[in-house]
């Protein structure tokens, strides 16, 4: 069984995982990198246009314009705006559902776990109310009403959420967004066939989309989830494939909409549900974290210790998690649920259930549940998962020791017959993978509380040079920038060795934590000054803010620190890197980073290099517009040096 399936897997920063995947009797995305190695040069540069039936048109020296006349700049920026609009739409979908879940929960007077978080939102939004529920509903409504505004009506919460100097800058540049959903609509329309051909105009739209994506899709989704699900609390937790406990019915969750699981995860620990699990021979249910929704649960894990076993890995670890054989069902609700898990689920008889039709997987049973149907639908899901467990691992668990000796031969014969028919799916666990003491639960609130309720201690450390600066290593994991998590992990190592404190959010976190960089022992890998700080405080040199949504939390940290210093965001010794960006959503995040005025490093170009205008605007002119800048480099050492140089420049401009 354990034969190498091709022996042609890509590298991973996580060596035990790399060896595990190479030994699997299944094909994974890691196996397919080789056969997809030949890339289309026109596609890589973004100069392929297939918007109309004259195409695909490609730009070459003999053909500098498409049939319609679009040149490389138009083709590239049209493609880019399409990607940013789609990515923004994804995040706006997430915040919309989250706000609707909060509204419905408030109406039904359901559990509100984060009362302090609600107070904070009310203060931010100037909302008052006589009860918790009234306030929660009003807060949710405030978000929803902004999302649904037309494109020509500016969203009201932008000014309340944005750091003031940034808001003023955006106003000056005329990039304050209208209703977030309408902005997506406008972006998509603008880049349709033979409409806009002005590259700069389209790039400006990307900034508007960046702002609405960042403030609503990122910042607000976190704040709303904090109300519904409870705020993150600092703690140490196990990560990696070790978190999978085969004694339980294991449900792997993937996606980005954590609030969809609230009702179900309570239901799974009720005695009635546990009894159903026990009846088929399991001790109960466990959720195994995967992708960002797993990161988010881990972040708030202190509220969910009974049901949540831990975070196993990122998007490109999901196949390995399934290949352990101990996962009985996949509950998915959004992106980063790889289509490649479908054949694996089929092979290993893993039940796939999809909770949101936008991410309906081909194998999955679609079980959307309207809020009012949650009880009935939840029970149905539990029954289907129990059924899957019984079919996969449900060898009869019956005790015949008290049976009459007369019946013994018959019982033995029947059991023998049963066992010859029913073959359990074999287990292939990797119990030593990952580590037991990754620091999690870091948020703008918990970190500030850890520092004594103010940012001054961190600012002082930066001012004194004990910490050279901050780097957010965020975004996805992909398999091409050196291999699975290779660039993210190597870059992080280089940065901490330069005494730069790294903050992470997204699938990058999943790889970096499985490689052990978020344990206190990782302080040894930091430069001498950062190491001393970490050892004194008992913290790792990489702080994990959780899912990619938590890039919004990093922005809050940065804004609050900037406010305390009385400077604007671009002046902070802070850089961002989405080293292994993967999806369109990451490009919308990136547009937010640029609107915030931050230097943004990408390991791979976002299919824009075919346009001189796009490259110039994003890598150079942006510095004069928002203060931001795009840096593209796929070498960890060089990238770290570039980012360090920027941090040093910002430090000297601040006279520190």
């Amino acid at each position, binding site marked *: 069984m354990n034969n190498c399936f091709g022996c042609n897997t890509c590298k991973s920063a996580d060596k035990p995982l790399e060896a595990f995947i190479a030994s699997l009797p299944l094909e994974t995305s890691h196996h397919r990198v080789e056969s997809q190695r030949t890339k*289309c*040069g026109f596609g890589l*540069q973004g100069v392929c246009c297939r918007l109309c039936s004259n195409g695909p048109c*490609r*730009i*070459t*020296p003999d053909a500098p314009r498409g049939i319609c006349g679009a*040149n*490389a700049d138009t083709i590239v920026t049209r493609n880019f705006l399409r990607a940013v609009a789609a990515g923004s739409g994804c995040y706006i979908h997430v915040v919309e559902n989250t706000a609707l879940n909060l509204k419905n929960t408030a109406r039904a007077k359901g559990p509100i776990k984060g009362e302090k978080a609600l107070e904070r939102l009310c203060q931010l939004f100037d909302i008052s109310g006589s009860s918790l529920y009234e306030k929660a509903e009003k807060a949710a409504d405030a978000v929803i009403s902004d999302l649904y505004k037309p494109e020509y009506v500016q969203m009201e919460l932008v000014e309340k959420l944005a750091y003031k100097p940034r808001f003023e800058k955006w106003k000056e540049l005329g990039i304050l967004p209208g209703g977030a959903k309408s902005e997506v609509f406008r972006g998509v329309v603008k880049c349709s066939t033979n409409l806009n051909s002005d590259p700069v105009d389209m790039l400006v739209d990307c900034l508007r989309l960046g702002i609405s994506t960042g403030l609503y899709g990122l910042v607000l989704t976190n704040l709303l989830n904090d109300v519904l699900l409870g705020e993150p609390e600092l703690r140490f937790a196990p990560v990696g494939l070790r978190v999978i406990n085969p004694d339980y019915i294991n449900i792997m969750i993937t996606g980005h909409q954590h609030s969809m699981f609230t009702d179900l995860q309570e239901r799974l620990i009720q005695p009635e549900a546990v009894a159903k699990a026990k009846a088929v021979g399991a001790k109960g249910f466990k959720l195994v974290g995967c992708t960002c929704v797993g990161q988010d649960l881990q972040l708030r894990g202190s509220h969910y210790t009974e049901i949540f076993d831990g975070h196993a890995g990122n998007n490109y670890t999901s196949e390995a998690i399934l290949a352990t054989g101990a996962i009985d069902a996949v509950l998915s609700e959004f992106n980063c649920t790889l289509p490649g898990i479908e054949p694996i689920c089929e092979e290993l008889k893993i039940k796939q259930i999809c909770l949101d039709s936008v991410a309906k997987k081909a194998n999955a049973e679609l079980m959307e549940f309207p809020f009012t149907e949650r009880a009935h639908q939840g029970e149905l899901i539990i029954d289907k998962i129990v059924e899957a467990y019984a079919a996969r691992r449900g060898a009869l668990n019956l005790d015949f020791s008290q049976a009459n000796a007369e019946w013994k031969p018959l019982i033995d014969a029947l059991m023998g017959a049963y066992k010859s028919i029913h073959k359990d799916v074999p287990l292939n666990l990797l119990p030593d993978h990952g580590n037991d003491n990754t620091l999690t639960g870091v948020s703008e609130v918990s970190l500030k509380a850890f520092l004594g309720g103010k940012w001054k201690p961190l600012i002082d450390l930066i001012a004194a040079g004990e910490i050279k600066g901050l780097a957010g290593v965020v975004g996805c994991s992909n398999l091409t920038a050196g291999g699975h998590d290779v660039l993210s992990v190597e870059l992080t190592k280089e940065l901490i060795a330069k005494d730069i404190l790294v903050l992470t959010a997204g699938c990058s976190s999943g790889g970096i934590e499985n490689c052990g960089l978020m344990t206190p022992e990782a302080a040894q890998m930091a430069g001498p000054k950062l190491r001393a700080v970490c050892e004194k405080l008992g913290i790792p040199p990489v702080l994990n803010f959780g899912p990619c949504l938590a890039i919004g939390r990093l922005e809050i940290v940065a804004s609050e620190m900037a406010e305390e210093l009385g400077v604007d965001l671009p002046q902070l010794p802070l850089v961002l890197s989405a080293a292994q960006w993967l999806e369109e959503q990451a490009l919308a995040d990136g547009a937010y980073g640029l609107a915030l005025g931050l230097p943004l490093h990408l390991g791979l170009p976002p299919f824009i290099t075919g346009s001189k205008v796009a490259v110039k605007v994003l890598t150079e002119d942006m510095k004069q517009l928002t203060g931001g800048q795009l840096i*593209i480099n796929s070498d960890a050492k060089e990238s770290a040096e570039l980012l360090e140089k920027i941090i040093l420049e910002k430090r000297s401009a601040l006279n520190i």
Partner: protein
Amino acid sequence: MKRIMIDDSKCDGCKNCSAACMQAHREPAGSIYDLDMSDPKNETRNHILADGKGGYRPIFCRHCTLPECAMSCMSGALNKEKDTGLVRYDEKKCGACFMCVMNCPYGVLKPDTLTRTKVIKCDFCLEADSEPSCVKNCPKKAIWVQEVQA
């Protein structure tokens, strides 16, 4: 000697061979991401023609056994190398008479677009480590390298 073989039924006309050729011969060197796709300096040494019936004809230098280009070259800029069997071009010796262009039975040779003072000719990517860039980058494996009689 080695020759690039072609199965035109497999060609999808993606032009990745052309992009790879441009990338292999550009100056200064760089990554495929910063190859200037619209700069006439970056010429491709191969090209793909549409056959008018939905198919494609990839045109690559054959490094012919009896190369018309070399035989018609008066200045000695084009020569068939004995040891490798490749037809090599020496720009310094070229008189830009373009007899080679006129005589190539495949229409693969061409004068350079910008200066019209030299010939754009496949060099089999001899500087590269293993096989020609075009072959390496054909996603359909419509072209490959094969040992043939010189």
